[in-house]
Every structure is written in C-alpha cells, then in structure tokens.
C-alpha cells in the first residue's frame, strides 16, 4: 500500500517540479509564450491542455495492449488530434468569449509535444489510473507555469490581474478582476513575446536556484562529516 502511495507521490513530484513540462522539459513553448499575456488566457489554455493530456493518457493506456509498436505513433497522433478537436468544439460552444481570445492556439495543442511525449513515455507503459494521474499532474505543472507567467506579465504589462475572467468562468467572475494600478502607457515589453521569453528565463533560473539550495541542504551534513574525518587523519 505504502509503495503504491509512493509511486503516485513520485508521479506528482515529477509533473509539478522535477520534470515540469514547462520548466524542465521545455515542451509546448509555442502556446506557452503566445497566450500568457493575461492570467485568464493562460488559465484557459492550461485547462484545455490539461483536459487533452488526461484524456489522451487515459485512451492511450486503455489501448496500449492492442497497438503494435510499429504503428503506435500514428495511433497516438490520431487520438490526440481527435481529443483536441473535441475540446475546441466544447470551448467554442460553452466559453465563446475565451474561444475568441484563444483563437488559433487551441488547435495548436495538437503540436504540444508534452502530450505525445507523455503518451509515449508514460501512458503506453502504465496502468489506466496511473496514466490518468500522470496526465493530471503534468497538466497541472504546465498550467501552473502558464498561470505564473500570465499573472506576472499581466501585472507588469497592464497593471491588472485576472482581466476578462468572465470570459473563462461566466459573468459572475467579472468581479475577480483586480486593478492594481492605472497605467497610461502599458509596459510594452511584458506584453510582447520577448517579455514572455525573459519571464520564462527568470522562472527557470528561480527553479534552478531552489533546486540548488535543496541539493546543498541535503548534502551539507555529509560534507562536514567527511571534513572532520579528514582533519582527524591529518592530526594522526
């Protein structure tokens, strides 16, 4: 029981941090950089990607015993393309405002390598439940990176947070928009793709710093131990 729990914990850590699709695998950069101008768009695309990721992982895991190795890639591509089309239709039907603002980036989910990557590397080798969980965690990892990038670009660029939330969540969400300050001319760099690249760079740098500190902390006691031993040998 405990080992099963541990396995799921590992999947979660892999998706959210160690093997984060946005920060470590650097997959799916095209939508990541293009739509993260506002938090709403980032969340919208993140959720859509997550839905596709879970769906494709589940389907791939379901059919993994029936698909011979030689034709697995075309089969995965078909499954993913079908799912993306479905998600696109659903967003078009039930979140029309979001559909208008995400525009061409929805079909581009097909080309997001995270999805076929997980299908190939995980779902085609693991059980249904684990694959679904992996899809969820990878999707969540991607969503979080999108959201952080979207929020910081929106704050820097237009001085608002969650503008257009009503497009994503319905009319009640209009009140979620926070106007932090009024800008006459917005900070253009943050709104344009170069700003996304720079923000992305900062996020990756931040992750590396945190990783390094964790590594230092875990290895630190070991180091002192060896040092004391070394001293002892020197004295003798």
């Amino acid at each position: 029981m405990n080992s099963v729990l541990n396995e799921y914990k590992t999947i979660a850590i892999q998706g959210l941090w160690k093997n984060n699709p946005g920060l470590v695998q650097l997959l799916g950069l095209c939508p990541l950089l293009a739509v993260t101008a506002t938090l709403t768009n980032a969340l919208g695309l993140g959720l859509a990607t997550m839905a596709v990721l879970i769906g494709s992982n589940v389907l791939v895991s379901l059919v993994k015993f029936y698909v011979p190795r030689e034709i697995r890639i075309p089969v995965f591509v078909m499954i993913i393309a079908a799912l993306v089309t479905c998600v696109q239709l659903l967003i078009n039907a039930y979140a029309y405002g979001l559909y208008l603002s995400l525009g061409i980036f929805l079909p581009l989910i097909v080309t997001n390598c995270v999805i076929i990557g997980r299908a190939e590397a995980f779902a085609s080798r693991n059980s249904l439940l684990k694959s679904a969980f992996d899809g969820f965690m990878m999707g969540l990892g991607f969503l979080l990176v999108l959201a952080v990038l979207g929020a910081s670009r929106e704050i820097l660029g237009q001085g608002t947070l969650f503008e257009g939330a009503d497009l994503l969540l319905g009319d009640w969400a209009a009140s979620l928009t926070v106007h932090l300050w009024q800008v006459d001319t917005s900070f253009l760099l943050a709104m344009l793709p170069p700003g996304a690249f720079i923000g992305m760079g900062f996020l990756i740098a931040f992750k590396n710093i945190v990783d390094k500190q964790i590594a230092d902390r875990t290895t630190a006691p070991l180091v002192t131990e060896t040092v004391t031993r070394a001293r002892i040998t020197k004295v003798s």
Partner: protein
Amino acid sequence: MKKSMIKNGLLLGVFALFCTALVAIVNQQTFEQIKLQQQLELRRVLHQIVPDELHDNELSEYCILIHDEDALGIDEPLPSYIASMQNLPVAIAIEAVAPDGYNGNIRLIIGINTAGEILGVRTLKHSETPGLGDKIDLRKSDWVLGFNNRSILDAKDRLWQVKKDGGDFDQFTGATITPRAYVKAVKNALLYFNSNKDTLLARPANCEVNYQ
C-alpha cells in the same frame, strides 16, 4: 510480413474510425450551441451600435451582402444589417475591413442612421500590438466612442484624419498607423453609404448569417 502489414493497416483504420466517430459525436452535440453563441455575439455587437429603440426588427436576421473592395477594404462580400421601424429602414450596420492596420486586417462594424450619422463603431477582430494598437478594442479604451454622432460631407473632409495629420481623431501614443487605418476604413464605409444609401436600403435580405 505481409500479414502484419495488413493487420496494422486494419488496426489503423479501426482507430481512425473510432476517432472520427468521437469528433462527429461531439460536433453534433455542440453544433446548435456554437451557432447560438455566434448569434448571441452578433446580436450583442449589433445591439451596441444600433440602439434598440430605433428599430423593431430583428437586426441579425435582416442582412445583405456588400462586395466593394474600395469601400469596405476587402475583396470579399461582407454582411451589413438593416434596421427598420414599421418596415421603413432607419439605420444600417456595415461590416468593413481596415486592410492597412499595423498587423494585418482589422475587422470592424459601423452603425449609421439614414441621415448619415454614425451611431457607433466596434472592432470585431484585430491583431494589433497589445498595449499600443489594441485601444481600438472597447474593452481596452473608449477611443471608438469618439466616432459617435459624427457625419461626413465629402471625401475631402479634413476632420476625418488623426490629429497628427490635421484631423479630429486622437492617435495613440506610439501607434499612429492603427488609428489612421481605422479612421480611413470608417470614413470609406460612411462615404459609400452616403452615395449608395437608397439602393442599399432597398435591397432584400439575402445572406445567411454565418459568423466566423
């Protein structure tokens, strides 16, 4: 070898069928809703630029197609919507394109009453620079409201330019191309309406509402 090829081919076919079926089902389930959403969006915009109290017909259902590249900026038929009160035309909402925006075509819609006065202008679709050129979007700035109640005498009207060119419309800080293109597009559509008013308003509704 041959056997496995046939088997794999068949398998691929089965998957293709399955995936197509999935998309077909979802498409069928969402078709009505998507159409409804497009209708709602169209009505929402039309309702903003042609006030309800002016007309008693359902604007989005009374649509004509106009094909005139010089006036509307694109070599494609674009829909216009005629508002009428007790079967007399009172206003028109003309869709037009500003082809020379900073970043591609800007699609807009202009409400004009029969006196040639602008009731309202809205941007339908654009890809102008966020933070600079996107002030043509009412969600970002109320610049488009500056067109309200204006009219034009002839093509030489100097007021129908941005202030930088000696006209009456604000340009945006750091972006002159966008408002310049926009003002020109509205001006062309307005001039076109003024000189073709009677034929336009007399035309029978002849286009399927198909909003993309």
